[in-house]
């Protein structure tokens, strides 16, 4: 009982082969697109590498790049095979390779699906990495004289300007760290000394934010210092003021940006997966119909194509038996004393010469 049996005339087979040839070349193009999407994601993650703590997020773009390259190779081979399938004599060249090729491609489509699902699962790791990375970056904001960290101020400022965000969760994160370097603090002033003594770690904390937090949409000039002090500024109430600084936290802004990219990439990979699966189905039909034609002998006759020769359960059972017996090659059969030839009826017709008389059995005692 074959699964999804379809009858194929000669013209239908030829058309199927030609269509599959074109589809395989389109799949090569989609493989290239997958590769470039993976490369794009890798570049985007590396661009903000200074703001991300060490976490295992590089596996997603690496997987996409690998899948893209393998898809190109597999579909290139598939295109060559389908091109040759129009001619039954050329098909004989590929006959033995086609079934392993189809099995490999089937497992490969699983990899494509896994790649698509990974794009959606990266969310949690990325959030954690961004959280830690941004906290570190804000802590070292003032260290513009320390080698290795001197560009962190510029990076954080440009990030806040470009993504329209402030701090890690919100602008209040800046109140808890010292973001003005000691080089620019006048230690002889009383106000500075008071602030330094007001907390355990001796940090110069203030209720102010860097200029990059300023919102360009604000109708009034930016209020950066003494943000929580309503009386320091005329006509200002910090609880209701929303347009003065960027309200969004940079972790959320970056997360939204990357999730958006990965959702688009995930969608593209899913569509590629469906396309690959349909091409694979076509190649399977082509293979089975051509094999049946060869079995029947007449290359111009009609033949059947199917997905599986027997029903799904039987195919699974036979394959499992094959896999089981693969492991049993070196095992000794302990029944019959290990002699495999005992009790095997002789089915071969021995030719005993022109009379066809079996020789006399020589007994032991004569």
């Amino acid at each position: 009982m074959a699964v999804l049996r379809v009858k194929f005339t000669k013209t239908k087979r030829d058309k199927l082969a030609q269509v599959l040839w074109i589809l395989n070349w389109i799949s090569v193009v989609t493989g290239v697109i997958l590769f470039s999407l993976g490369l794009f994601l890798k570049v985007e993650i590396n661009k903000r590498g200074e703001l991300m703590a060490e976490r295992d997020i590089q596996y997603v773009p690496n997987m996409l790049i690998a899948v893209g390259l393998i898809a190109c190779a597999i579909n290139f081979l598939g295109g060559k095979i389908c091109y040759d399938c129009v001619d039954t004599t050329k098909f004989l060249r590929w006959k033995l390779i086609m079934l392993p090729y189809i099995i490999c491609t089937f497992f490969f489509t699983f990899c494509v699906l896994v790649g698509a699902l990974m794009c959606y699962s990266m969310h949690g790791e990325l959030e954690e990495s961004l959280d830690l990375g941004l906290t570190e970056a804000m802590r070292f904001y003032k260290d513009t004289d320390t080698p290795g960290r001197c560009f962190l101020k510029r990076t954080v400022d440009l990030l806040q300007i470009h993504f329209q965000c402030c701090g890690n969760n919100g602008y209040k994160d800046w109140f808890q760290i010292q973001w003005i370097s000691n080089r620019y603090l006048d230690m002889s002033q009383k106000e500075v000394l008071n602030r330094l003594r007001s907390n355990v770690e001796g940090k110069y904390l203030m209720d102010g934010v860097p200029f990059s937090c300023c919102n360009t949409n604000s109708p009034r000039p930016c209020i950066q210092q003494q943000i929580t002090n309503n009386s320091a500024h005329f006509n200002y109430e910090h609880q209701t003021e929303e347009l003065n600084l960027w309200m969004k936290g940079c972790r959320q802004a970056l997360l939204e940006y990357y999730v958006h990219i990965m959702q688009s990439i995930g969608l593209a990979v899913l569509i590629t997966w469906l396309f690959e699966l349909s091409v694979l189905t076509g190649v399977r039909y082509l293979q089975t119909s051509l094999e049946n034609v060869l079995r029947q002998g007449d290359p111009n006759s009609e033949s059947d194509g199917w997905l599986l020769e027997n029903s799904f359960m039987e195919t699974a059972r036979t394959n499992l038996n094959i896999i089981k017996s693969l492991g049993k090659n070196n095992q000794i059969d302990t029944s019959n004393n290990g002699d495999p030839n005992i009790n095997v009826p002789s089915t071969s017709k021995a030719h005993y010469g022109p009379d066809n008389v079996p020789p006399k059995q020589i007994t032991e005692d004569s």
Partner: protein
Amino acid sequence: MVVMKMKFPFQKRVKLAQGLWLLSWCATVAGATTFTLGCVLKTELRRRAEVMDNADIHIVPNTLMIVGLASLGINYFASKICQDALDAGRFPRWKNFLKPYFAASCFFTVLMLLAVIMSYAMKGSLESSLKIGLRNGIRFYKDTDTPGRCFQKQNIDRLQMEFQCCGNNDFRDWFEVQWISNRYLDFSSKEVKDRIKSNVDGRYLVDGVPFSCCNPSSPRPCIQYQLTNNSAHYNYEYQTEELNIYLRGCREALVNYYMGLMNTIGAGVLSIFILQGSVLVSLRFLQTAMEAVAGKENTEIETEGYLLEKGVKDTVMEYLNPVLKFFLLTNQVEEGATTSGATPATT
């Protein structure tokens, strides 16, 4: 006095026609590229239209777009003509079309060259337009509650951050303008009243700049206010401080940006101009060579091709005379007419 006579045997004519067909398709693509470049330039100019006083500079992208569209048509007809050129039966139907076609093609090709020259010549006009536009933008920076001007603050802030510049000529332009609105000034405070009384117009002037002038590459947190007062900030000297705020003026930044863009586009359009010119010259040679074949029995004879039948001056007069007659009133005394006095020339 024939201009540039060349001999064309049959094989050379065939090769000329084939080469011209290929060349005209390349020129069609080039024409589409010209149109696209014109669109790109126009879009970029429109993006900063709020800081430009007039739209005179838009003549450059408009010309490029017109020339791009015209060259699509010119090259389409060129390919059709050279396809028919080798067929002696089909070529004569183009006879009447060719003279106005060449006139129009030459006009548009020269227009292409003019567009490139204009893009360099209009630098002064662009600069003065930006000067006035930026000055107005800075003046109306504080008027975020006036309809029609409420986005000036946003535009100027974004412009200064994107182009890394401050003010019109430089950051000192902000010292001469009140850029903090009266809505946010506490008029009961003594300091505010002193400042307002300190100048004739009653404006609140500070030696400070908006936050968008701040340079992110500075190692220290941005100093926006009391810029000229060294004692107001620790370890600060404004004469030597270069990294604190952007020192470049926005007019200079914008002019450099647009001139760079127009230089790149101009280089591309010049090469397209050379391509288009070669298409027209080849077509002219093919036309004159094929015209000499017409009417002969043996179509494979060697003929001569030329650019202009008469000299340059005579050809120009030949084309311009009908145009002049159309536009000018020439005094003509008609034969047989008894009335004296000017009669307008009939078209």
